[in-house]
């Protein structure tokens, strides 16, 4: 985290709304991306992102060290996403259909297509992995996404999930075990 961000967090903690605005602009893409990866749904990701910053605004005095502002945001976003996942369990959630996404997002996705056949195969495999990940219990799913998708360290994940590092290892091991089986089935078929 840069010195500039730390200074902004200090100013925000003193009630500077301009600093808050700059922090929102700085972090909203990352929070949105994390939320989308967890919930696979634009409107849920939008809700999580909004709520994360509103809660961060209201709870900023709880942040003791400004250098952990990103973990603070990620924790709020992850907890809110886990709540949404729990609410979603038990009701059928359709995989996001690209045609339902806003036009700009469809453009971004179509721009990535290079080898259509391989892309289709890869895409199907990736969709199957995502679907299998969605069946995991919310905390295991969140751990997997923070560590393997977002690339955070186990220590950072433990900090965000507010649990010991051993719990992160255990959740990760169980989640990967389930996905490994799924992937093995898909690759052999």
């Amino acid at each position: 985290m840069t010195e500039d961000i730390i200074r902004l967090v200090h100013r925000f903690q003193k009630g500077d709304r301009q600093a808050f605005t700059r922090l929102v602009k700085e972090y909203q893409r990352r929070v949105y991306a994390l939320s989308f990866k967890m919930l696979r749904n634009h409107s849920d990701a939008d809700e999580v992102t909004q709520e994360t910053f509103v809660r961060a605004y209201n709870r900023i005095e709880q942040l003791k060290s400004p250098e952990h502002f990103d973990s603070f945001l990620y924790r709020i976003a992850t907890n809110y996403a886990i709540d949404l996942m729990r609410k979603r369990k038990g009701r059928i959630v359709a995989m996001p259909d690209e045609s339902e996404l806003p036009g700009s997002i469809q453009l971004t996705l179509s721009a990535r297509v290079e080898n259509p056949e391989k892309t289709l195969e890869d895409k199907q495999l990736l969709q199957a992995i995502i679907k299998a990940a969605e069946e995991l219990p919310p905390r295991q799913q969140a751990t997997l996404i923070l560590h393997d998708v977002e690339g955070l360290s186990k220590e950072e994940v433990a900090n965000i999930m507010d649990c010991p590092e051993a719990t992160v290892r255990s959740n990760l091991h169980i989640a990967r075990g389930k996905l490994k089986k799924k992937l093995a089935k898909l690759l052999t078929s």
Partner: protein
Amino acid sequence: MSDRHTVHLHDDYADGSMAEKLRSEIDRHTADCSACREDLDMIIELKKRLAEIEAPDPGDRYFQELTDKILYRTAPTDVRTDGAVIIPVSPGQQTMKTLIRVAAAVTLLFGSFYASAFLTDKNQSNYADSSQPAAFLLTDPIALPDAEAQAPAPSEDSPSDSDEKMPEK
């Protein structure tokens, strides 16, 4: 190590969080043990695939709107000295308010223009249709002392005059 299965260590191996010595021992073991090799390959493949998961970019316009919504939701509600709470206005409401203000100003402008034109017409016709001076003349401080004297001579088109003159014809 090389004769024991290493499955419980594969997560750390794939994450790269393992001492080099232990890592080479796993390499040695998996070279001979196909079950462990398969498990390790699967974890590495899974990690590679998971890292490919991306979120779409909804675009700058979406994020600008998102910032506006967040700022609106966190805008401080101001409490005035009389106890009234000033509720913050959203960007959409602000635009609507401005439009209403402009519409009201235009309506007022045209309204006052037409009203003054209408009143002028009415006063002129009143003055033309009646033998009495127009009301505004009576309130005129200059005209008031000698209102009747100051009143212009009735024109020939005046209905009262014409009524009187008609029998002469």
